[in-house]
């Protein structure tokens, strides 16, 4: 009797440990999801900054999350801005910055392409780059060194590079 009670007690303890472990696992996964879902103030510029940081840290899931969020919130405005242009916006820096949605959605798609490319997901990377070129081709990205660069031109180069890379394995 005494032994059987001990065994029951041990089993209950085991069960509690198991439940605890499961809880820890669930909580930690929720926590990492929550972290991944940290979009800050959700401004397009914030999401782009976070995507660059995630890319540099090799946190590819986070790059995808920021890209999705940015597109979900700002792609309509970005497309509107793109269709209002017939070439890259010129003029002073403020004028170019006024196409903020276009610039940020285009840039984040470039980051997504880079991330997918780094993961060896070539066809998905080409898709991201093509979406950038086709839908947000006039986007421009401010370089902290003091000028704007054109993600769509860089994306065209990346598509050519990925096409060639695929030929190497033929």
């Amino acid at each position, binding site marked *: 009797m005494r032994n059987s009670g001990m065994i029951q007690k041990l089993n209950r303890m085991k069960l509690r440990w198991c439940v605890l472990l499961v809880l820890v696992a669930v909580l930690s996964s929720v926590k990492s999801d929550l972290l991944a879902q940290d979009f800050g103030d959700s401004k397009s510029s914030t999401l782009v900054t976070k995507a660059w940081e995630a890319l540099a840290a090799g946190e590819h899931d986070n790059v995808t999350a920021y890209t999705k969020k940015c597109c979900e919130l700002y792609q309509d405005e970005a497309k509107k801005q793109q269709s209002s242009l017939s070439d890259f916006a010129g003029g002073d820096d403020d004028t170019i910055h006024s196409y903020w949605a276009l610039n940020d959605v285009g840039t984040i798609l470039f980051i997504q392409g880079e991330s997918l490319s780094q993961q060896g997901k070539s066809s998905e990377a080409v898709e991201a780059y093509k979406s950038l070129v086709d839908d947000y081709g006039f986007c421009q990205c401010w370089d902290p060194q003091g000028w704007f660069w054109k993600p769509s*031109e860089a994306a065209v180069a990346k598509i050519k590079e990925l096409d*060639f890379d695929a030929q*190497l394995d033929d």
Partner: protein
Amino acid sequence: MIRTQIVKSILDNVTFLFLCALVAQTSVAADGSRVRIRGSAKDGYQLYVNEEHFVIRGVGGTSHIELLSSCGGNAIRTWDAASAEKKVDGKSLLDHAYDKNIFVTVGLWLGHERHGFRYDDPNSITQQRDEVVNAIKRLKNHPALLCWGLGNEMEGPDGKGDSVQIWKEVNTLASLVKKHDPDHPVMTVVANVNDAKLATIKKYAPLIDILGVNVYSGSVGMDKTLRDLGWEKPYCVSEYGPPGPWEVASTTWKAPLEPSSRSKASTYFAATSSILDATSKDGTQVGQKYCLGGYAFLWGHKQETTATWFGMLLPTGEKTLVVDAMTKAWTGSWPRNRAPILQSNRITFAGKRVGPGEILDAHVEYRDPDSDDLSYIWEIVKESTDRKIGGDAEKRPDIIESRVIDGSGSDQIRIQAPQKTGGYRLFVTVRDGHGSGCSENWPFFVSP
């Protein structure tokens, strides 16, 4: 009597040979190339060499002319006149090029202010003008001459590059070149472009025929960039290649991450294709093409951050995958013998810190399209501390004597990290034994 006859016979032969040489020399002089640019800003531009349309499929360098010819290249560019005249195996680079139907843009080196040259010093200016004119007089009649490359990045690799003094002098030099040689266009070469630089060149150096732009990461978009900046004359991408050490991510100890051989090959291919797309294919004036072609950097090898960053050939002369990529872009076909292709690598310590003397494991997997047997050489090299800008000469860091535990000569190695604290790179050089090879490297840092 017999001796006299022998001496006379020798003298006759020598005289004959001398006359032959003289005739040959005169014939080269008489048959100097004639190069013209045709077209306009409205219709686009084309280069014509001896009345034939010519798209520059070029490289920057001074050697391996035969290999260049076999890969589909048709032009080479030097940075100074001495390199074009220097004799190897009894012939100058121009002569070797002529033998293989390769044309040469001969560089006319102009002083750089960062090296101490002063564009406000009359004596320095006079001396430089004399040197330029003398080089033109010596070489203008060579049949392999394509263009004059007047200076290389003398406006400085950083900053706006809009010094009026420099560009006025370039214009004066261009007028001197044209005065002494009306048969070859004058190209000046800049380190990338910006609006201030282009505006200054347009205003103060209008005699320049071709703008040569050295550009790495942005080479694919250069055509659009120049148009956006309002450039309406012919241009040429005078240096292009992989992203430079100044354009890539670095480790925490500031060691730039060199792209893999495979990634470099893709970059060269994309850039070359874009350059060719921007040129007029058949000499027809359709499509407002302003680009005359390009020169990939570097046909050879040099130390610039690493010994392999820009080299299209290994230091031992083998062509790399980059050359295969260029061949494919230039000719549409792969070369007969192809270089090994990196499939995967497992370098767990790449970009990380390791302990002194720690055991390091590295593994690479290459595929050789010709199924050649591959040889592998692994080396640990100190991180370069002699970093310069603008391509200035750098000292190659030391190779470290390393204790190989296992796997020397194979595709995997177990090697002991150096004891001394500091940055290093593990290099692997792979050769196929038939003239092709490639190299990769991974930085790591030793600290206690």
